[in-house]
């Protein structure tokens, strides 16, 4: 596939493994084995069975009739919100837990922002009987309380991170530090298509099932696939098998926060420049001195100052169009879906839905929105916004 990672771990100019020497053995071990394990028949069989019977895949591709009528077009929702644990994140964590078992790792660490990846990791670890530690920014612990309780109930230890902006970026730093300090028995399940090579590709391969299913479920190709982008795992999952179908318009929607003209935003591709964050070269929001800027989004899962290296590449080669919507636009889109379709979407996914307001439609268009997660975790934000 022409957009796949190369031998050196790069997508065009982006990617690589900017890691300290202390992580070199771990990354090498993973790099030399992950493709082989992912392609192993027994692994594929075990993962497929779990995805079917435990996660509930394939998730429906639902034709949203009233939403379609509202916009005068044909809108399909890929229902990742119906996955066990309520988001696409479980596709990745189950795959990585099986991978960790094959690498003989007994301890799992993860970072989380909204808590969806943390819950999905805690779930997979409970299922496999593995120790699970989740790093979460103190600010996110506060605003995503239900998911913190879920992780704890599932047996995970949630470690509060107080450095930096106390959000996803800092939780990721802390997970990387944990891995440096506990290399031999620990596997780090990174939650998005970010981090050092081979993680962006590993997570891409595990999330690609989303677009694989869309392709099978749809009669012909869609005209558009729209997904929200923080680190970018649900978007890559929804885009991957369409990347070489150049007629399909792919749209990634970043979190504009209060707007990209304010200093409260998380729209990395709109506001960022090239640099290295979390060990890969990509775009990131930074000062002229290379200090990472603390982002803002109403959605904890999109509140990230970087973006996966494959997205950076797809942006530069113009295969994917990246746009952004504000906190307010996302909230309005969430309400629209609730009222027209009876679905409460995650705040993250609401960003993808909000992009519909910016599109011009042809009545024959077939638009797929990746509904990456459900909104249970966001109830307090929705309630506060409504009052």
């Amino acid at each position, binding site marked *: 596939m022409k957009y796949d990672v190369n031998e050196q771990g790069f997508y065009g100019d982006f990617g690589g493994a900017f890691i*300290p020497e202390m992580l070199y053995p771990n990354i090498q071990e993973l790099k030399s084995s992950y493709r082989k394990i992912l392609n192993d028949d027994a692994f594929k069989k075990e993962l497929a069975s779990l995805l079917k019977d435990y996660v509930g895949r394939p998730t429906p591709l639902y034709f949203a009739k009233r939403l379609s009528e509202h916009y005068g077009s044909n809108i399909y929702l890929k229902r990742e919100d119906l996955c066990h644990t309520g988001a696409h994140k479980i596709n990745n964590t189950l795959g990585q837990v099986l991978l960790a078992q094959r690498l003989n790792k007994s301890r799992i660490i993860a970072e989380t922002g909204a808590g969806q990846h943390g819950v999905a990791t805690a779930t997979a670890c409970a299922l496999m009987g593995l120790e699970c530690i989740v790093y979460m920014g103190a600010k996110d612990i506060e605003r995503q309380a239900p998911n913190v309780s879920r992780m704890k109930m599932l047996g995970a230890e949630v470690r509060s991170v107080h450095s930096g902006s106390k959000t996803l970026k800092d939780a990721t730093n802390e997970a990387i530090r944990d891995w440096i300090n506990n290399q031999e028995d620990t596997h780090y399940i990174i939650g998005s298509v970010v981090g050092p090579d081979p993680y962006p590709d590993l997570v891409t391969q595990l999330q690609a099932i989303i677009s694989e299913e869309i392709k099978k479920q749809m009669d012909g190709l869609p005209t558009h696939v729209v997904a929200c982008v923080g680190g970018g795992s649900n978007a890559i999952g929804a885009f991957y098998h369409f990347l070489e179908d150049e007629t399909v318009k792919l749209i990634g929607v970043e979190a504009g926060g209060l707007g990209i003209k304010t200093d409260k935003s998380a729209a990395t591709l709109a506001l960022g420049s090239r640099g290295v964050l979390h060990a890969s070269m990509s775009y990131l929001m930074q000062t002229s001195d290379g200090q990472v800027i603390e982002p803002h989004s109403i959605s904890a899962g999109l509140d990230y100052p970087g973006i996966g290296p494959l997205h950076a590449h797809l942006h530069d080669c113009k295969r994917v169009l990246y746009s952004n919507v504000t906190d307010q636009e996302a909230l309005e889109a969430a309400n629209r879906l609730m009222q027209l379709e009876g679905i409460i979407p995650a705040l993250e996914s609401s960003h993808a839905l909000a992009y519909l307001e910016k599109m011009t439609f042809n009545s024959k268009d077939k638009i797929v929105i990746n509904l990456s997660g459900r909104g249970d975790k966001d109830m307090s934000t929705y309630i506060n916004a409504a009052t």
Partner: protein
Amino acid sequence: MSTLKKVLETKKEGLLNIYCTAGYPELNDLPTIVNALHDAGVDMVEIGIPYSDPIADGETIQKSNAVALKNGITIDLIFEQLKECTPDIPKVVMTYFNPVFKYGLEHFCQQCQKVGVDGIIIPDLPIGLYQASYEEMFKNYGLSPIFLITPQTSKDRLQLIDDLSSAFIYAVSSSSTTGKATGGLSDGNTYLSGLKDLGLKHPILVGFNISTSDDLALVQKHAHGGIIGSAFIKYLSDKPSPEVAAQQFVKEITKG
């Protein structure tokens, strides 16, 4: 020949390198601290250029980075401050790839040369990328790259790192983040006692988790010297005068 290489040539053992974070504890303390360390007999200093996301650093150095950034430190200001430091003590800078990349690597190297920096430690700079893109540049500006090795670094990789080095090699005492002191280093540490038998051409300085005079004596016995970071930063944190603190710290850490 750089000041750093001269020191490494004349002093073959018992080297002491002390790390300080530029802009910490106060914005303009760097020259005072560096000059005091020199007066106290320290062989070289490692100057940390703060970064918002220092993944190889433990809590102490993370905090000093955050404080320094809050104080308003910038790379340009650090280069200004370095001009006020005595030229007699060898200086290496330690930072992460992103600040240097954003600043511009060549511009950064130029500035280093201008203010008498002899070596650069960028722990997250991949060796392959260094060879492909920056080796010539570092040479042109008389800068020695300083690479980290760990107990897990393979023989082939050690050889490569030794070949690419031109000053010293930075051995981390155990694979960890900085300042992860877990009760001191022990004399029975086979990694430390085996360092001199690795057969490397360049001197080895051991850093990470050296917090007492015993730790320092131990690494100075087994390697060519030691590097102290977190312990010094911690020491500075509650002292009124960084100058007095620097001298006092060196006295305490080198006793015995």
